[in-house]
């Protein structure tokens, strides 16, 4: 038997290898780390990183540390990879996360994390920012600001601000073009379609695939499903987005109309109840339901579970038998399948999002800490810097903006 120290060390080595692999696909973050290090700006600043804890986000934490910050890391048990925890600890970071721990323990860890007196919080879903405002107002007073990664975190932060409760400036990284135009479309699109194929060992060739919602995630899912040979049908409540889907070469129908031929449904709305229970009996026998980007709340999970017929027929594939005798299959318990059953977004895509986080930290230190409490966009310069570095790494070059072109652009 190995003792726990040995196990930890082996886990740390495994985590370090995966962090190193991710690092090779994150050249933008490296350039920003080097620049921040040279500036000395982060010296003595205590940054908290509270994102899904896996190799890519570990690289953000390490980049901030290498640039001179002191870094603490927090994550919920359900989103934590223990090998990454051990690897970060071996690098001297304070980590408040335990893979698989329950919700009570999550809150306890979040409190301990906050009590390390963070100057800046990088948050996911605004859960730590909210906890800090509720339980540790005195700690919030000494914070410089925060950065938020997701749509679902930005919404409550705006509500807090409207109610006059937000006490710090927060930079909404989620709203950056360099995030949602890439992360949501190419990242979530690729990884969810590939996860569906990996889980089922099936094809999409020739299948009718319904994509519910034609936002950025829906567009990505439709694109990659079509690439794998699917016949894509889009459902959308917004007439303009629906018209775009028509012009992108997809059939556009209501879900009720499309349901009788829907072999696979990807819900890509982020909206509760996007696939209503009434749809279930319309589906062909053996239809597959899954979620891309959002969570199980998009699917009629309660109605399915109430049938009392749940059977796991394959790893991450649950079968439900409807009163009519037809079966419906749900992948990954309805969770976003690229996170529940794969490694999340591709590395190079997260290089963009996480580099923006590093730049948000810089912006908070240089100017944003003086701003009134509120939710702010990341600067256009930061976005362009990220895109430029990535372009260079992709071997692409920009057309130079000549004085003639500049003049023509400004002519009227």
């Amino acid at each position, binding site marked *: 038997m190995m003792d726990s120290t040995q196990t930890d060390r082996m886990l740390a080595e495994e985590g370090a290898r995966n962090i*190193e692999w991710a690092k090779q696909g994150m050249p933008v973050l490296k350039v920003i780390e080097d620049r921040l290090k040279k500036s000395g700006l982060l010296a003595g600043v205590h940054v908290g990183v509270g994102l899904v804890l896996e190799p890519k986000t570990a690289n953000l934490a390490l980049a901030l540390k290498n640039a001179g910050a002191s870094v603490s890391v927090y994550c919920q048990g359900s989103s934590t990879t223990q090998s990454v925890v051990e690897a970060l600890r071996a690098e001297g970071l304070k980590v408040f996360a335990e893979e698989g721990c329950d919700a009570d323990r999550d809150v306890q860890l979040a409190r301990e994390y906050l009590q390390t007196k963070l100057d800046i919080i990088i948050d996911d879903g605004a859960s730590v920012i909210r906890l800090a405002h509720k339980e540790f107002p005195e700690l919030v007073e000494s914070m410089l600001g925060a950065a938020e990664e997701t749509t679902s975190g930005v919404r409550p932060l705006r509500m807090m601000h409207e109610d006059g409760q937000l006490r710090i400036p927060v930079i909404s990284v989620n709203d950056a073009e360099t995030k949602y135009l890439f992360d949501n479309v190419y990242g979530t699109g690729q990884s969810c379609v590939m996860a569906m194929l990996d889980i089922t060992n099936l094809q999409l060739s020739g299948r009718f695939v319904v994509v519910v919602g034609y936002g950025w995630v829906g567009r990505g899912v439709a694109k990659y499903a079509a690439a794998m040979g699917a016949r894509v049908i889009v459902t959308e409540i917004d007439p303009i987005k629906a018209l775009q889907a028509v012009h992108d070469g997809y059939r556009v129908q209501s879900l009720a109309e499309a349901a009788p031929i829907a072999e696979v449904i990807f819900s890509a709305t982020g909206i509760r109840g996007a696939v209503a229970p009434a749809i279930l009996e319309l589906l062909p026998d*053996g239809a597959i339901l899954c979620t891309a980007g959002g969570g199980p709340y998009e699917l009629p999970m309660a109605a399915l579970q109430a049938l009392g017929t749940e059977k796991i027929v394959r*790893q991450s594939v649950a079968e439900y038998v409807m009163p009519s005798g037809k079966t419906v299959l749900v992948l990954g318990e309805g969770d976003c399948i690229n996170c529940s059953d794969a490694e999340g977004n591709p590395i190079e895509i997260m290089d963009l999002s996480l580099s923006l986080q590093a730049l948000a930290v810089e912006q908070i230190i240089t100017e944003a800490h003086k701003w009134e409490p509120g939710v702010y966009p990341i600067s256009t310069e930061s976005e362009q810097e990220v895109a430029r570095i990535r372009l260079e790494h992709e071997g692409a070059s920009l057309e130079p903006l000549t004085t003639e072109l500049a003049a023509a652009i400004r002519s009227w």
Partner: protein
Amino acid sequence: MNQIAAKNGKPLSDADVGRAQIEWVRRNSPVLDGFVRELLAGGELKGKRIAVVVHLEAKTAFLATILADAGAEVIVAGSNPRTTRGPVVAALKERGITVVAAPDGDHHTWEQELLAAAELAPEYIIDDGAELTMRMMHHRPDLFKLLKGVSEETTTGTSRLKAMQAEGLLTFPTLTANDARCKHLFDNKFGTGQTTLQALLKMTNRKIAGAKVAVIGYGYVGRGIAQYAKAMGALTFVSETDPVRALEAHMDGHTVGSLATVLPEATMVVAATGGMRAIGARHFDFLRDDVVLANAGHHDLEIDVEALLAASSAKQDTREGVETFLLGNRKIHVLSGGALVNIAGGAGHPVEIMDLTFAVQALGTHYLMTTPLEPGVHIIPKELDDSIAAAKLQSFGVTLEEIHADQNDDFGLDKEGI
């Protein structure tokens, strides 16, 4: 599969898990479970000893059960020591099928398994790479003489059978499944194409949008990989020695060139020639830093990993299935040690594809039993091939257009070519 056990409340045996995996294959294999089952119900397979030597996972297991249900005495062995799945073996044994393979074997145990299969004196073999056929010839010539027919899965095995025929060693008829359109048009192109991309992206966690993917060889496998990569947003490059195929790749919209021109651009390289050393020592100078190399061809030697190791100053295990070789200051990543990436690093072909391939094998075996054929290498008749595609289309509810007499041109040429 622990999830299955936990969810359904009671601990499951290996055989339970294997049965669930085989059932998943059944529900997605309408041709085998319908058309083929009905055709074999005539009783011609009753009491016939058939050895099935294919990668022993759930899809192969389902084929074995179809043959057993038709009355055959089925002997199952694996075609590769590393691809045999324990739960599937348990499920097959539970239902009385003879399995001579075990999981977690090595090359030596696999040899023993094939010899054990030979000892059981099969009359027919569904073979992969002619592995069992050749061993019977070498080790049990007495039993080899009693063989009545072989249906072979791969191009490699077909070449071996043809070599045997040339030397006058084939005393029985053989069928080459790979030459059936229902096999190579789908299995090689769509099956290998899709699952190679899946394995590449899963093993690396990298993006495909804007990736520069070079495919070496533009046969059916190469075409499938290049087509899926391009459709997913990669910049695609093809290298080919055959001018007609190279021209086809050009018109399909890929950038075609020699390895010297193509490799320096590529961030991912997939070998799909079916030969050896598609990427060998002479090409290493062309590879760029941080390139990912994968093999989608039959031979583990399609990427010359030994030569790469010899040329490297260091090698490290980078992450699961990924090894990195240091060439000067360039890092070269190799997936699955150069083994077939979609099988070693993924779940193998999609179920629906193997529904076609194994229908070819099952109907081929039936054909060998029911039709007098000369010893030698044969192809399954076009009518059988067509009937498989028709059954698949029927399962989708797809109808075919019929040809009418007035559609023939004045010379009354054959329907072919319209």
